[in-house]
């Protein structure tokens, strides 16, 4: 059985395409993965890449939420309640529009996208792998 590190390596960097310029390198991504205890993932069910990731996640005992671009049900029935009481780290492979929604909503709960990588040639359209986690308050806050 794969360990978590290998699982995420396969799922989140399986395409040969470059990570977005300015985003974190794979090495720092794994540091984040080890530090952030990921228990749930979100996957776009129309994407073979994301579905394979989902299968691995389930095998590892992670909770996997399948969506079809629309995050409404996931948001309303799960994340809205969960993030209100205890913001928790989330990873996923979705369409960019889904990540956009999650990113906008996450900001209201003190969370942000800590990692993102675009898979531009994925089918049926560009996918993005990501991690959303609670923001660390800036250690170098200019006005402490």
């Amino acid at each position, binding site marked *: 059985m794969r360990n978590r590190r290998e699982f995420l390596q396969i799922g989140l960097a399986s395409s040969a395409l470059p990570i977005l310029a300015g985003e974190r390198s794979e090495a720092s991504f794994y540091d984040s993965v080890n530090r952030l205890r990921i228990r749930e993932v979100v996957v776009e069910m129309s994407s073979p890449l994301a579905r394979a990731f989902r299968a691995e996640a389930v095998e590892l005992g992670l909770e996997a939420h399948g969506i079809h671009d629309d995050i409404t049900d996931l948001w309303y029935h799960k994340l809205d309640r969960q993030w209100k009481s205890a913001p928790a780290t989330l990873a996923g492979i979705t369409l960019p529009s889904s990540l956009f*929604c999650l990113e906008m909503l996450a900001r209201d709960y003190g969370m942000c996208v800590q990692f993102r990588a675009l898979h531009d040639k994925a089918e049926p359209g560009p996918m993005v792998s990501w991690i959303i986690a609670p*923001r660390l308050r800036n250690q170098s*806050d200019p006005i402490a």
Partner: protein
Amino acid sequence: MLPPGVTASKFADAIKQFQGIVGKDWVFTSDEDVALYKDAYSPFWGEKDEILVSAAVAPDTAEEVSRVVRVANTLKIPIYPISTGKNLGYGGSAPNLSGSVVLDLKRMNRVIEVDDKRHFAIVEPGVSYFDLYRYIQERGLKVWIDVPDPGWGSVIGNAMDHGVGYGFGAFRDHFYSHCGMEVVLPSGEIVRTGMGALPNSKTWGEYHYGVGPYVDGLFGQSNFGVVTKMGFHLLPAPESYLTGTVIVPRRSDIVPLVEGGNQLEHAGVIGMPEYGSPLGGFGGASDAELRSLMAKPGGPSVAELEQHAEKTNRGFFSLNLQFYGGQKVVRAQWEYAKEVFADIRGVKFNEGDFIKFPAMQEQLDKAHKVAIGVPNLSIFMIGARSALNPSPTDGHLWFSPLIPKTGEAILEAQEVFMKAFRDMNMPSLVSPFSVPATWMFRAFVFIMGFPVYRTNIEQNKKTREMFKHLIQVAADHGWGEYRTPPAFQQQVTDAYSWNNHALRRFHETLKDAVDPNGIISAGRYGIWPKQMRGQRKA
């Protein structure tokens, strides 16, 4: 960055005082934190004119808001209140004045009261449509909210920007359907309007006006105070919902089609009328032959388009009617509606969905959820890359001119705006099939969505130029915008220039009286504090 005109030491003092009021955890000054308040759909993304924020403060109560505002007033710190900051397409969470401190009201997310016998709610600004919907569903209350698309925004924030929804009658004009406010004035004083000004009022959520001057309108699309509570009238949950479509064959049939739609809507028979064209809409012409026809030099004639509509057995225009109420009532209303349109030669009718509530899951999955008061985020799916949308944008700006509720006005607007795009040598967002949105129930909005990109500054510049051109073209024809992003608010409000800008001068008189230091939302909808009016530019 610092707010304009504020020294570093004064800013540090302000931040320290804000922290003392709301707690250190709720004052945000780091680059990472303040970057979250950028307008996600900014037409200036990456340019020097992009609006940026110096800090953000998130109070939890009206009393904290009052104390924060008093500090801002004393130290002359410009602040910009937001509810949930999701007004994408119209500026989002970014202020008009770069360097402002955002007053983020999202922590104020309490539903104060929902009454399903008198049909109203009172909420705080951080309450989203999802929140209010959940509150009502969890308690089994027999009321509906009216929702915009998407449903993640603030109920108060949307209304304060004159936002709109999709439901029945006046409920979908969200400011119109509000009832009473609590407002923190720039002095820090807290005032309640309408019946709320009566201590222990029993009717704050029911009767708008109280007694004497009705001031609520002064706080919408303006900068005279910070709204911390607001009431809203709600629709009693209907027994059923029915749709029916009217299809007319000729372009000129839009005139009687709109007349009939107006009659039904203004008499309270139907909810939001949805005009459309089977020949195409936002996405352009709906089939390859029609696209080829549209590409002809000089464009197709009306006769050619009508022939195509007839050949493909589609009409030229359609009107989707929505009925809410008892089962017997909605069915009778649909029969009546057919009589209203019967004189249009060649008219066709299609009965659509019927839902008796509570809806079954498959009915909900098929339904246009916003029309039945269910907030959702599915609108974002239309932006995904596809064969019809090979180059998705990073956002959009809404150009929202109001035109009269007539078929003649629709046809005129099509011609005028198509010419405007030709004059600027830009691909047209308007076609002979374009129809207005009908969110407000006593005017049409001939809305157009302009793309914005985070990595294409040149395209954004062209978009801004086209947008500015359209504002002028619309004003020349007596069509003003009802709402606009901050980048264009000055030009749009300048167009409302009757009697030498008498309305703006009145706004400025009020602004000078209630906010002499000009701390709240400087520049919002063209209202600048006295000390900044010389810098006003469109």
